[in-house]
């Protein structure tokens, strides 16, 4: 194995500074992309989807839990399976505390095709507290192109795929603003990375956002997760 050269601290710092300039370029490029996302047009969700939660039927609008934005992860969990997808499980493991999303007027939910009892059992096993809804009895997954028309026996997770959608609520109306799949999901992890996909962004004053968007000072809105006022 060809390992990099061993150098002094000051030589290393020189090489690191050169790389830092490139890392900063990538950070600025990421900010610019997030600004473009906030200007994407939105599409009205015309159908009244009803999903299944642990307490019974839940219309799509209630996934917002009264907040303005909803990040929805389509978690691969086929109806014939007892455990959800391992890659999706890693995504949820590193999600962080939902209190930080809520502090930005944003809810987070998982939706899968498996019936709600299976989701609840697996959620308990994994020790997660993220809200999880079943689309077992709804067209939701097929319409959003993450499930085949009929579950495919013998395929991984019965043929489900993963994706992340972002929705915005305006009164009683729901709009889809964003979707990402594949390596776009791979890049997510921090609360910031998720907020960068939402129509309102991080809601910080330095952001290039359309006129009138809610914005405050960075590094001031967050609290320790048990210190947010509800």
């Amino acid at each position, binding site marked *: 194995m060809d390992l990099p050269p061993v150098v002094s601290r000051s030589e*290393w710092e020189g090489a690191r500074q050169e*790389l830092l300039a490139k*890392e900063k370029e990538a*950070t600025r490029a990421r900010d610019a992309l997030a600004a473009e996302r906030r200007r*994407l047009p*939105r599409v009205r969700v015309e159908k009244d989807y009803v999903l299944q939660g642990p307490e019974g039927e839940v219309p799509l609008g209630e996934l917002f839990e009264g907040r303005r934005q909803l990040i929805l992860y389509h978690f691969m969990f086929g109806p014939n399976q007892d455990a959800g997808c391992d890659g999706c499980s890693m995504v949820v493991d590193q999600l*962080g505390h939902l209190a930080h999303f809520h502090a930005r007027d944003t809810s987070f939910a998982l939706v899968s095709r498996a019936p709600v009892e299976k989701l609840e059992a697996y959620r308990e*096993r994994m020790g997660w507290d993220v809200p999880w809804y079943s689309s077992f009895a709804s067209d939701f997954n097929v319409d959003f192109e993450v499930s085949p028309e009929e579950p495919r026996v013998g395929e991984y997770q019965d043929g489900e795929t993963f994706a992340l959608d972002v929705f915005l609520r305006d009164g009683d109306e729901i709009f889809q603003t964003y979707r990402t799949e594949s390596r776009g999901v791979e*890049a997510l992890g921090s609360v910031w990375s998720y907020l960068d996909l939402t129509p309102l962004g991080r809601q910080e004053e330095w952001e290039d956002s359309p006129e009138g968007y809610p914005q405050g000072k960075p590094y001031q809105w*967050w609290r320790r997760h048990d210190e947010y006022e509800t």
Partner: protein
Amino acid sequence: MSPVGTREEWLEARTRLLAEEKELTRRSDELARKRQELPWVQVEQEYVFETPVGPRTLTELFDGRSQLLVYHFMFGATVPGWPEAGCPGCSYTADSLDGAALHLPPHGVTFVAVSRAPLEQLEAYKRRMGWRFPWVSAEGSDFNLDFSVFTDEGRRTGKGFNFGTAKHTDEIDLRRDELHGLSAFVLEGGVVYHTYSTYDRGTDALNATWALLDRTAFGRGEDPENWPLRHDEYT
């Protein structure tokens, strides 16, 4: 607010953006490759940390693996919440790191948080926050200073945060202030090398497991068998 469009219009705009997102993904891959090409610096000093199982050296923190990622968690006398609590911003990052860190040891990477506060304070706060990652105290050692500035001048003056970036340069004194960051080390032939450190907005993207691996000496490497697994399935 953005205009409401048809599904087709949205798809067209989204597809245009996707091309730019892909460009950034490729650029991030390229940066990860360059991180792996950075030269290494031998760590000459034998640092000792206070851990729940007694004092441990930096070498021992590797815990039998070849790579070590250290999250410099701000928990010291100048941090809001002292003496009971660590920095709120680091706590926010730690909430996400906690789950990601479960997937690192099975990939040959040990993850540990290091702070200046005494161990008892770290342990009490960790219980309160419900975290699982290992957390050790560097109280009384120069570890934090040594991995935030890299020149003798910097060590003497406490200046030079984030490799001398102009921003913050006057107000930050690294001899006194707590700052967060991430450092990567590798253990090769019994010798510890420092390979990477990042601060400030460089930590934005850190919380995901892939992003963490992109910052280790060996990167994502070949996908080993049985990784990733559900976190209660690793043996």
